[in-house]
């Protein structure tokens, strides 16, 4: 193992459910102490991947290396080093104190310090130990339960903290506190964070890398435009096409099946303020800028464009945005080479 070994290295990892592949990843590396975001529609395999990264489930095929060593569920390499917080918290049928101290007890150590550690963890997630420590598991709101569940992970100071849509079913106050705590763990303890969330704006703000998943595969780093079928052959027979909600036609090369989903890599999309002069093999769509958001990590600005009910995103370096050429509501034209379309 070298000093720069990534915390995770996945090779040929597949997970099947009823012989259907839920996850199919050729290669993935996650650097130590990084913050990695995971986006994708429901059913895209995010939770399955996170469960494997948390060593709760093992892959059907392939290898997961943890800090250069092969690891699997219950192995000593990872048992006390990785922790996962699920979207819907499950609290043990015990008091709040017992829930948070559970992991500490598994690790042994000085039991006289448990009380102090539990109080500190409760304080981190913004709950008063005097008020909450002795509460039973059923005496908490959804947001409080999620915060207690997070406290039960933070008290362990894990090397890797995996959060599976941690703010999806909690109130705004709890969501804010959960996000702050996760970032604190990264900053103070060097914890590697892997976060799945639908809040891609938040992920783009805090993550060094955002991975997008679709149908169990990694389709890019960011928010790629996914175009769902069905596709019908065009008049010329050369291309297939689909009508968008506003009547515009999207052209694609011949799909592997009429129901296949097409992805246009965002780095190959060209943005214009006027209708472009197309070269052979190109196609354009007219859209409107829906959102501009800053990505401080990458020093880029993400532009979301709505065209016929479909969202396309692309990134522009921050320095190119000094002139106010783009603003929400502005009509723009996006051009893409048909050969760039990939199929899933």
């Amino acid at each position, binding site marked *: 193992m070298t000093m720069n070994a990534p915390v995770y290295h996945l090779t040929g990892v597949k997970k099947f459910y009823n012989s259907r592949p839920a996850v199919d990843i050729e290669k993935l590396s996650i650097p130590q102490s990084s913050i990695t975001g995971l986006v994708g529609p429901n059913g895209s395999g995010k939770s399955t991947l996170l*469960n494997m990264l*948390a*060593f*709760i489930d093992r892959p059907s095929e392939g290898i997961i290396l943890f800090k250069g060593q092969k690891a699997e*569920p*219950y192995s000593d390499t990872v*048992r*006390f080093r*990785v*922790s*996962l*917080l*699920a979207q*819907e918290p*499950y*609290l*043990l*049928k015990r008091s709040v104190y017992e829930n948070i101290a*559970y*992991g500490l007890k*598994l*690790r042994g150590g000085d039991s006289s310090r448990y009380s102090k550690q539990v109080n500190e963890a409760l304080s981190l997630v913004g709950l008063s130990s005097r008020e909450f420590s002795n509460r039973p598991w059923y005496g908490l709101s959804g947001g409080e339960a999620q915060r207690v*569940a997070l406290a*039960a*992970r933070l008290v*362990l100071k894990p090397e890797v903290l*995996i959060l599976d849509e941690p703010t999806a079913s909690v109130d705004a106050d709890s969501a804010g506190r959960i996000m702050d705590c996760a970032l604190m763990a990264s900053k103070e303890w060097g914890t590697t964070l892997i976060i799945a969330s639908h809040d891609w704006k938040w992920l783009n703000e805090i993550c060094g890398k955002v991975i997008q998943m679709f149908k169990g595969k990694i389709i890019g780093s960011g928010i790629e435009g996914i175009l769902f079928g069905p596709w019908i052959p065009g008049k010329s027979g050369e291309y297939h096409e689909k009508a968008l909600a506003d009547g515009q036609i999207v052209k694609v090369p011949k799909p592997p099946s009429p129901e296949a989903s097409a992805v246009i890599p965002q780095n190959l999309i060209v943005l214009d303020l006027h209708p472009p002069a197309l070269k052979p093999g190109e196609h354009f769509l007219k859209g409107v800028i829906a959102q501009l958001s800053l990505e401080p990590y990458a020093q880029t600005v993400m532009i979301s464009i709505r065209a016929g009910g479909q969202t396309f995103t692309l990134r522009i370096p921050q320095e190119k945005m000094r002139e106010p050429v783009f603003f929400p509501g502005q009509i723009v034209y996006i051009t893409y080479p048909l050969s760039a379309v990939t199929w899933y």
Partner: protein
Amino acid sequence: MDFIIDGLLQAIQLLLHGDGETYSAVSATLRVSTYSMAASLLLGIPLGFLLGHNDFLWKKHVRTIVDTLMSLPTVLVGLLVYAFLTSRGPLGEYGLLFTLEGIAIGQAILALPIVIALTAAAVESMDEKLRVTLVSLGASRRQVLYSTLWEARYGILAASMNAFGRVLTEVGIAMMVGGNIKWHTRTITTAIALETNKGEFATGVALGIVLMAIAFIVNFSFSFLRNRS
């Protein structure tokens, strides 16, 4: 109507004056139900856990068989245990027929499917999120097992109470395997049956009151424990 009220009054007198025959039946009942419950819980909880927690071929069929055995007729169990324990039976040499231990064996057989089936149901009803939580907090396989059992404790308690109710109130096994021998294997239920046949309502009612009191005390204790935890 008068004879019922007279019977009730005499029953209270019998209990207050410590009638030896009554208390012998109470003692026999408590001993035999303790033995049978201990055996059925020791065997039934681990087997129920295995059945509920693991997936294996024929699991559905095993569940169906265990569920069916929950309604075993007590006279059938009595008959089978009698056949095994009688001097001509395969276990005849141990001299267990017409003993409290013999009754306990039969009652344990009666309680076992109830404990297994209801423990399995309690463990099966545990959320998959429990395993995810335990593993993500660093539990080993054994700790996952123990913690899952602990999390299912209310369901297992309900299973035990159900089995205890069946053991406490059964007559067939105690009568057939125990022989209803005075001062020896006469339990509360066999005594009630006998005393009613003899027209001794007072003793029957007195024993009935004790039976209900035992059931109430045990249930109350378990509810108290449950509320405390």
